[in-house]
C-alpha cells in the first residue's frame, strides 16, 4: 500500500514538473501567397477536407485542441507537427518546382489512398478530420487532376 502511495506521489510531482517545460507552438496569423489554396483553384469540398484533415500538421497554423496545453501531450503534438511540416507544408506550396510538386502530389495521393493519412493517432481524437469515403474520392480526384496538369 505504501509503495503505491509513493509511486502516485512521484507521478504527480513529475507531472507537475513537466508542465513547466516550454513548447514551440505552431501558430501564425499570416497566410503566405504561396499557399496551396491561393495558387490553385480548389473546390469548396476539397478545401474543407484539406483544412480539417491536413492543415493542422501540414501548415504554419495549427488549430490546437485543449489538451495541447498539457504535457506530455504538448510534446507529442509538437513532434508530430514538426515532422509533418518538414515533409509537406501547404502554406509553402508554390515555393516548390513543378518537379517537386508532382512528387509531393504523388505521395499525397498514395498516402490518402492507402489510408495512411490522416494518421490514425490524429483522427482518434479529431473525429472531424476523418475523410469520409465520398470526400476521399473527391480529394483524390482533384489531386490526380492537378498532378496530371503538371506532368
Amino acid at each position, binding site marked *: 500500500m505504501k509503495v503505491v502511495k*509513493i509511486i502516485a506521489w*512521484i507521478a504527480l*510531482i513529475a507531472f507537475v*514538473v513537466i508542465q513547466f517545460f516550454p513548447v514551440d507552438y505552431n501558430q501564425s496569423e499570416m497566410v503566405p501567397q504561396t499557399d496551396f489554396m491561393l495558387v490553385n483553384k480548389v473546390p469548396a469540398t476539397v478545401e474543407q477536407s484539406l483544412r480539417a484533415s491536413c492543415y493542422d500538421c501540414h501548415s504554419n497554423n495549427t488549430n490546437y485542441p485543449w489538451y495541447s496545453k498539457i504535457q506530455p501531450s504538448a510534446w507529442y503534438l509538437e513532434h508530430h507537427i514538426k515532422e509533418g511540416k518538414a515533409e509537406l507544408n501547404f502554406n509553402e506550396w508554390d515555393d516548390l518546382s513543378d*518537379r517537386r510538386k*508532382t*512528387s509531393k502530389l*504523388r505521395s499525397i495521393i498514395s498516402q490518402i489512398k492507402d489510408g495512411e493519412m490522416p494518421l490514425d493517432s490524429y483522427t482518434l481524437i479529431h473525429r472531424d478530420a476523418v475523410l469520409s469515403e465520398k470526400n476521399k474520392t473527391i480529394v483524390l480526384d482533384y489531386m490526380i487532376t492537378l498532378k496530371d496538369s503538371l506532368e
Partner: protein
Amino acid sequence: MKTIKLRMSTMALAATMILTVSCKDGNKNEPAAPMSNEMHQETMNDKEDMAMDKNQDTKAEVVLKDYFNLKDALVNDDNSKAKELGNTLAQSLKSFDASSYADSEQNELKDIIEDATEHAEHIGESDIAHQREHFKTLSKDMTDMVAITGTSMIIYEQYCPMYDNNKGGAWLSMNEEIRNPYFGAQMLKCGKVQREIN
C-alpha cells in the same frame, strides 16, 4: 527518518526524469550522420582539384552507379537489398556538389537532386510495390540529371508500357538487353529500348 528517505527517493526520480528529457533533446541533433557526410564531401573536393575536367562526369557517375545497383535489386525482386541501395543512393545524392555547373544548370540540378533524394530515401523504407512507384519518378530525375551532366558511359533508356496500369514506366540501364525493374521475374523481358544516351 522514513520521511527523509521518501523525499530523497522522490527527488532522485524527479532528477532522472529531467535528465531523460534533456537527453532526448540532445539526441535530436544526431551529429554522427552529417559529419560523415561532410567528410565524404571533402574527399570529393580533393578529387576535384586533381581532375577538374573529368570531375563533372565522375560525380554524376557515382550517382548513376548507385542507381543501376538499385535497379538491379528491383529486377531481382529483392526488397531488402533495394532498401539498402536506396539509402546508399540517397547518401551519394546528398554529397553531389553542383557548384561547378553554370548558374541556370545549378538550380535545375539542385531541384533534381532534392527530388531524387526524397525518392531514394522512401525506397529505403518501403515495400517493393512502393519502391517501384518511387523508382519510376526517380528514373525520370536521373534521365534529367544526365541530360545536364552528360556521361562517358553508354546508357540505354528503356520503357515498359504495361507498368502503372498501362501508363508505362521508363528506366535507365547500362545493358541493351531488357531486364524489367518494375515487374521483376513476373515479366522480366517486357519492354523495349527507347533511345541510347551518351
